[in-house]
């Protein structure tokens, strides 16, 4: 799904999700829960991909220093911890499974 020229120069950038699907962009859909609301992912999406192809941010920084959207994507920086079905997990290397419940807000309150 290549962004069109008009989308690229849109002034309303804030309304668009952060990441763009470029390759294998149409795969089977699955539904999960994101912060309590129904959400859609594609089969094989990590939680990070599913969230950032729908939103611009992933979590709040652990020390209240602003929003974060992941960084290293290889399990090293530890900036993408979320809560999955009550257990903490890194969003960058946890695949979305149908029906799972992801909470992005509670990452530093335990979980």
């Amino acid at each position: 799904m290549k962004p069109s020229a008009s989308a690229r120069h849109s002034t309303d950038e804030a309304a668009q999700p952060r990441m763009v699907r470029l390759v294998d962009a149409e795969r089977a859909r699955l539904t999960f829960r994101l912060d309590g609301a129904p959400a859609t992912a594609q089969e094989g999406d990590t939680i990070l991909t599913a969230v950032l192809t729908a939103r611009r941010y992933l979590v709040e920084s652990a020390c209240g220093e602003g929003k974060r959207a992941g960084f290293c994507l290889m399990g090293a920086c530890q900036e993408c911890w979320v809560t999955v079905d009550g257990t903490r997990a890194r969003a960058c290397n946890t695949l979305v499974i149908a029906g799972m419940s992801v909470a992005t807000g509670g990452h530093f309150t335990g979980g």
Partner: protein
Amino acid sequence: MADPAIAIVGAGPAGIRAAEALSQHGLSAILIDEAPKGGGQIYRQPPDSFQRAASGRYGFEARKASALHRTIQRLATAIDYRPSTLAWNVCDGRLDTLCAGRGESVVFDILIIATGAMDRLLPLPGWTLPGVYALGGAQIALKYQGCAIGRRTVFLGTGPLLYLVAYQYAKAGAEIEAVLDVNPAHAKRRALFGLASSPRTLAKGIYYRTWLGAHGIAVEEGVTPMGIAGTDEVREVRYRRGSVEKSVRCDAVGLGFGLKAETQLADLAGCRFRFDRESRQWLPERNSDGESSVSGVYLAGDGAGIGGADAAELWGERVGLSIAARCGRRRDASRIATIDRRLALLARFRAGLERAFPLPMHGSRLSDDTILCRCEAIRVGQVKEAIRAFDVVEMNRMKAITRVGMGRCQGRMCGLAAAELLATETQQDLAAVGRLRGQPPIKPLPMPWPSAP
């Protein structure tokens, strides 16, 4: 004598080839890997639902990637292969692992550490803004998830990966605003002599660079990055070229200055480290058999110093052959000689690359309000103040006082810059400030672990 229990950590090019060589000599190993599929970061395999052919995903390296994937697929049923498993500690001949919430200890007589590399990063003003990703992370977004990190991307930093990832993004249809290399073209030309020892790799590098130019993508070399600007997210990259200040609008930045070895397990295993001037990193020592200073602990691949994927495959095999000989198998002297010759050639090439793409020095000249530690948002000025107030001259003391390196990443992101800063502030040699001690668990663990089903 019974065969020893052998454990390998890391199923990238080095770990897989080590397991293969052992298996060919009738030795079985436990192969532990954090990823669900083998290949490491460089040859990382996407989840099953992705259809894109290997030629698109791995480019010129597709043949090597596919060969490695076939090997791990074959080995998976022949050996004790444990994917999706984190080795989070090593102590007294025992690895502590965690898989799907279940902890398990793995006892070994011989350990091969093949933990690979990650991006070598330096802080910049604004590098914590959403939209800034490590360069290797930007590549993983594409090859593992089919995604670009944004709509208009700037690639900033240095090293061969900078051009490769920009090329891969452009080929996949992403919009690239600029490729900004902190190293000037003349440094690369000077280093060509060393690079010429591996003409094929050199040719690929030139190809990517030329391809980008031919496709109208702005490539600027010899820039000084000034910062990444934006309020809630990335809006532009500011830099200087000569005396001219410039900026480029974007909503994503791929940031990286080469690669850095992941050495935490080698540290916990008690391996002796040496300071490597070329890469400005502390690295575990190893002999020509790949054995560390600790008997029975071997090092293979980028985790013992950056050599690239080809060298990692060779080191993996080399270590496997060393161990086979140690276990009484026939020593394959001619194959060992061939591998050693190739490794020597690749080492010359690597030295040339380090000269062509050295780490820039801006790490020691950061403004006081630049965030140094991403985990805990500790700024350069605060660290400088603490260094002065507490007469800090050593890294672990600095960690104790400032918490730099104590956050969740354990200094993986900021450690290098923190050492440069401490060395500069105290007018010491970089080697003299020491290195952050590794601590188990080497990555955060979810606690409490859910009980086993």
